[in-house]
């Protein structure tokens, strides 16, 4: 419209001028010029339009949300991503809505705007936003204040990035981090406790070692004392055997001389007294000898070897047969196993037990003495059974005590040391000794000997050596 007006006006002026001043060439030139400019203007307008369309398209399809907002917060323009971020219906035009509805806390928007007005632009500003449906979200905003020629702010253009997912991951990560920290702290504490415990046990160990050292010293002291008391005991038994026997011998000697030289001068009663004295000294002599033997046995070290118990018992039976008055004794003996022990001492055990069996059956018409053994996993249990006078089991606990007797001297002679010796020897072999009996129905004596060759003391030694 304007174009046509301009052309006709120019035509009129041209004609006038043509008519007035110049020739038609000038007019043609002018027309050409006008045409040229007109054409040029058209081209530039079209390309401007095209570029604006391209630009709009670019913004429309941008991967970031874009909007243009008036200063008072009215939405002027936006792109697809903006609509998507804030959950706006893509089919509807949302221009004209107020932006404050997208803030979780509208007061935050004021701070945001203050910042924007102060600097003119804002970068990577995190906003706690919400969608139209009210879902909380995090948005990273970059915005620019647009001003007119008078430098008056007219609108705001902003770009938005949805970082809700990132934020969630971050918070999850933070949570994980916190958990991890808790775990690490817990583990660290546990470790510290363990280290402390270790320190404590180390200390305890040190104390224990110290105690052990003290104990060792004490033990050495005790050992020394024991050695000393053993020596004293040795001296004592020497003294007993020597000095106690001498006066006994004297009593016996002088009584005998009295008997020999003045027997006829003495009344019957006096002779009786002298015979009592003689018997008493004899008895005391036996007692001293047995007591000494018993005492020596206690201190004696065991000399252990493999022993054929069968041979050993046969020897003892043979010598018993020779020493006793001819009697009707039926001996029964099972074949006995080999054991590990001190043959001299174990022989003494059999001698004492056999002597007892013979002694306490001496009032029988027919005597039966049976020797045998049983075994369990760890021990051989030997026994000797007789059909003698037996004893009342109520007094069984007194059997193995020194000087303890269950029969009077008038019934059966004895010192009360035989079974004490048996017990001492068997205990030294780490065995046990016991008896079963009833009055007038005979007695059975049992003793056990470990099957193993080592004794406990040696085992402890090996254990300590192994630890070094």
């Amino acid at each position, binding site marked *: 419209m304007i174009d046509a007006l301009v052309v006709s006006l120019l035509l009129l002026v041209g004609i006038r001028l043509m008519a007035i001043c110049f020739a038609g060439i000038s007019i043609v030139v002018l027309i050409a010029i006008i045409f040229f400019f007109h054409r040029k203007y058209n081209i530039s307008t079209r390309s401007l339009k095209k570029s604006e369309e391209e630009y709009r398209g670019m913004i429309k399809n941008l991967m970031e949300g874009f909007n243009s907002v008036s200063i008072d917060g009215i939405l002027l323009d936006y792109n697809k991503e903006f609509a998507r971020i804030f959950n706006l219906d893509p089919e509807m035009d949302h221009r004209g809505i107020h932006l404050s509805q997208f803030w979780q806390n509208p007061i935050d928007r004021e701070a945001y705007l203050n910042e924007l007005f102060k600097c003119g632009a804002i970068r990577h500003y995190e906003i706690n936003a919400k969608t139209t449906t009210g879902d909380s979200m995090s948005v990273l905003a970059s915005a620019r204040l647009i001003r007119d020629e008078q430098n008056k702010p007219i609108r705001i253009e902003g770009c938005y990035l949805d970082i809700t997912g990132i934020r969630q991951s971050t918070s999850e990560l933070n949570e994980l981090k916190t958990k991890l920290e808790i775990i690490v702290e817990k583990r660290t504490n546990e470790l510290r406790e363990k280290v402390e415990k270790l320190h404590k046990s180390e200390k305890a160990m040190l104390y224990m070692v110290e105690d052990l050292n003290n104990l060792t010293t004490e033990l050495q002291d005790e050992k020394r004392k024991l050695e000393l008391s053993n020596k004293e005991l040795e001296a004592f038994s*020497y003294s007993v*055997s*020597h*000095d106690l*026997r*001498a006066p*006994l*011998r*004297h009593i*016996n*000697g*002088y*009584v*005998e*001389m009295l008997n020999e030289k003045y027997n006829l001068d003495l009344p019957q009663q006096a002779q009786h007294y002298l015979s009592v004295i003689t018997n008493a*000294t*004899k008895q005391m*002599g036996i007692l001293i000898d047995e007591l*000494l033997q018993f005492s020596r046995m206690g201190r004696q070290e065991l000399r252990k070897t493999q022993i054929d118990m069968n041979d050993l018992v046969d020897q003892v039976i043979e010598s018993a047969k020779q020493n006793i008055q001819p009697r009707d004794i039926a001996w029964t003996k099972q074949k006995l196993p080999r054991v590990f022990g001190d043959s001299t001492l174990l022989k003494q055990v059999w001698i004492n037990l056999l002597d007892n069996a013979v002694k306490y059956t001496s009032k029988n018409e027919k005597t039966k003495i049976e020797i045998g053994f049983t075994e369990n996993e760890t021990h051989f249990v030997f026994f000797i059974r007789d059909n003698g006078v037996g004893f009342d089991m109520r007094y069984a606990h007194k059997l193995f005590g020194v000087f303890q007797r269950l029969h009077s001297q008038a019934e059966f002679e004895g010192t009360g040391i035989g079974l004490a010796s048996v017990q001492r020897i068997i205990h030294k072999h780490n065995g046990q000794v016991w008896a079963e009996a009833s009055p007038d129905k005979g007695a059975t004596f049992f003793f056990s000997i470990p099957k193993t060759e080592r004794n406990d003391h040696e085992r402890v030694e090996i254990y300590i050596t192994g630890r070094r």
Partner: protein
Amino acid sequence: MKELKSILLAEDNPQDVELTLEALKEHQLANQVVVVNDGVEVMEYLNYEGQFKDRKKGNPVVLLLDVKMPRMSGIEVLEAIRSNDTLKMLPIVMLTSSRQEPDLKKCYALGVNAYVVKPVNFKDFLEAVKYIGVFWAMLNELPPMDTM
């Protein structure tokens, strides 16, 4: 007839001396016995010292030696005699109250000729002393004088 030889009895206990002499008397050996009361006196006798300075020359046929004596014990005497060149061949019989294993070993190691435990029973004691007396004073041949 064989020359009458002396027996040296070292015993500190007077009752033991009496009983021993009593036993020897039964076999007509008592009058040959010289009694000393401890080890020191034994050495004095053998070396002609002290109260025995002027005694008749000659060694006893046997020394009956008690183990337990004051001043110098029987075992110390035995040791001293066996390490003395002029006395070492003297026959020595330990006559003691008890059979102590350590004593027994020591005496034999030192070269004793016999070790006798005095029996408690007097009849046994008489027997023992009789055997010793008869054996050493009558049966046994002494080592040559020049080595004594």
